[in-house]
């Protein structure tokens, strides 16, 4: 099985789908001739043609609006938003149209659209190239919101998203495009090469949306997380030698609350970790839902580690980022809570 980093895996997913299904088109800013600012669409236009891999004007609202119309005419567009920080101009088309079309037309019209967008920090991108806005999509009824954390999931979930008859917002944690990241910026960058989850089949396969993965099994505490933070939390858990279970939720909507709740009921303790700002972020829903289901099993309050409630500051990248140290401190605190 070839080894792929996340960029290659995502590229392969689109390549496979462009080849299998003539309804699939790819569109976005700089995705065509150039192959995307992160090279995720590299080579696709050359192979599949400029009528199926389209460079677009710089208008995120227009990209999504046009993609909805393409859906109505039978296509399956995969739209790239260059950075998640630039998805807001498309927010109205996403919330008012993409998310509502099936419902308001009683399924006469649907929008089986995939919106891919790189998110998250850790690349010195400053406040407009580092955001994690999944929370403001997960709240919207009618769209699926997902985020893979490794190449294998990235490809399988992207194929599943393209094939899904519902619209999917597909967040790509860009810090782990080229290698896992343990939350310690001063250590040399890691690569995906040799990582078991970088063994990615060349052809077609899917990873179903809406299913959490147990990234690591354990009995002492449950860490509920996703994206880049899966790797950061794993590093923190290892450093502490904790028998922790790490649940990579992979999908915010639909949320696999059963898997999450089973783990928390088993361990009795829960840490939630994400890069997004804390206040009213997706971690709040995780905390609320877990508490509703596991209240009688909890031995300590559910804690959250998240981005500080500020914009993402360029100079303070590593003081901002919820890195290994911050996760370790929270784990220690949580394990110390009396029962």
């Amino acid at each position, binding site marked *: 099985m070839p080894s792929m980093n996340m960029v290659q895996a995502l590229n392969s997913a689109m390549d496979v789908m462009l080849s299998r299904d003539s309804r699939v*088109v790819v569109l976005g800013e700089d995705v065509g001739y150039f192959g995307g600012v992160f090279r995720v669409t590299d080579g696709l236009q050359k192979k599949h043609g400029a*009528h*199926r891999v*389209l460079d*677009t*004007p710089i*208008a995120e*609202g*227009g990209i999504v*609006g*046009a*993609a*909805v*119309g*393409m*859906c*109505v*005419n*039978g*296509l399956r567009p995969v739209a790239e938003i260059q950075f998640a920080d630039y998805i807001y*101009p498309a927010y*109205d*088309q996403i919330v*008012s*149209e993409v998310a*509502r*079309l*099936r*419902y*308001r*037309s*009683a*399924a*006469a*019209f*649907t929008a089986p659209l995939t919106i891919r967008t790189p998110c998250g920090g850790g690349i010195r991108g400053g406040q407009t190239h580092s955001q994690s806005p999944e929370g403001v999509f997960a709240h919207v*009824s*009618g769209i*699926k919101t997902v985020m893979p954390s490794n190449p294998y999931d990235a490809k399988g979930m992207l194929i599943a998203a393209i094939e899904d*008859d*519902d619209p999917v917002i597909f967040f790509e944690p860009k810090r782990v495009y080229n290698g896992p990241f343990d939350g310690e910026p001063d250590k040399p960058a890691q690569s995906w090469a040799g990582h078991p989850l970088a063994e990615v089949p060349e052809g077609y396969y899917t990873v179903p949306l*809406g299913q959490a993965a147990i990234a690591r099994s354990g009995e002492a505490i449950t860490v509920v997380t996703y994206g880049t933070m899966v790797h950061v939390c794993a590093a923190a858990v290892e450093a502490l030698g904790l028998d922790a279970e790490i649940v990579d939720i992979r999908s915010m909507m*639909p*949320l696999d*609350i*059963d898997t999450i709740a089973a783990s928390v009921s088993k361990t009795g303790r829960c840490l939630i970790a994400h890069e997004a700002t804390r206040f009213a972020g997706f971690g709040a829903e995780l905390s609320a839902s877990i508490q509703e289901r596991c209240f009688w099993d909890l031995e300590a309050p559910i804690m959250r580690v998240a981005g500080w409630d500020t914009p993402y500051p360029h100079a303070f990248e590593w003081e901002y980022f919820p890195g290994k140290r911050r996760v370790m401190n929270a784990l220690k605190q949580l394990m110390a809570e009396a029962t």
Partner: protein
Amino acid sequence: MAIDLGAQFAACWLMLWGMSAPRLHVPAVPARPGESPDFSYVRLSPAGAVHCLPIDAPVSATVPLAEELIRVLDDAHHAVGPWNPQLDPEVLRRGLRTMLQTRVFDDRMQRAQRQGRITFYVRSLGEEAVSVAAAMALSDRDMLFPSYRNQGLHLARGLTLVEMMSQLLSNTRDMCKGRQLPVMYHSTAHRLFSISGNLATQFPQAVGWAMAAAIKGESDIAAAWIGEGSTAAADFHHALTFAKVYKAPVVLNVVNNQWAISTFQGYAGGEQRSFAARGPGLGLAGLRIDGNDFLAVYAATRWGAERARQGHGATLIEHVSYRAGAHSTSDDPSRYRPRDEFHDWPLGDPIDRLKQHLIAIGEWDETRHATLLAELEEEVTAAWREAIAAGSLNEGPRLDPALMFEDVFKELPAHLREQRDALLAELANP
């Protein structure tokens, strides 16, 4: 009359800012309640006066067509000039019938709303030609993206009165399963896209649909409609930009009925400038036409459609018309404009103008007209009886509330199943 009440606060202002009086331009509104209607601001061209161009004319050649006013019917009710589509009287009578049907339907639904049978309604009074002539000029396979004031499209395409009324009633036959406000129709069979409550969103969608047709190599085109007020929205710009860049096969219609709720068209940028001019400004063909002239609407739509179909790109058509009624049943226009302005509207009533044209060419008369009207009224009454039998929000059979949870996603996810069950339990034990 320009509104300038700024003087009232100039004094205190001056203390703070120490400068001269405010000089922000506030668009003029020609007449307010109590004043006489004044339509001198509407730039007219005589019927037949504006030249026609081949459908592959370069965009820049359309600049004058986007400024003048393309008209076919003259004051003596004759069809004149190069834009005359030379239609068969049978086609004209069909157009007249559908426009009249729209008006009778509108009147009746307006009354149904007043009686509390439906919650909300929007009439298209005075704008019937914009929709009916366009639908007739397009192919039945072309995909239409209407606004909430284009019911003529639906009627011309053959949606039945009962289907439309059932939507208005949110009843057991409602195509939307009770999920949409009245007037938000759709039909896959008739290629009418689902109407959105959010203004202008359908404009880039229509362009995307057309791009897909071009990608697939199909010859169908798309057409979309918005009000002049909605041209200020971002989606108007997205639509024009994408249509220009990819030469999308689409006809983009702006219905300039002079008002956006209480806001005059000058506040959308219409002061001394046509909306059609935005087409050539951005690289699309532009046509400014008499929207109350059935023949002009037909001809312009045909022109734009053929241009699109043959790969010469999109056209922006401004239909100059007048919103003769209230914005909706929630609105009272006597608060912001003179009563009965419609009588003075220089482009008249589209139904009356087509009727007079048919009479002038000897293809119609008052008796046939009266018969038609009576027939349409009967048809509407019968349809209403049938629709109401399928229920309404207040009486008769009702849709199953569990439907509320369906179609959020293709399959009902676990959390919505739980919520549905919770609701059913609540309803079972009130």
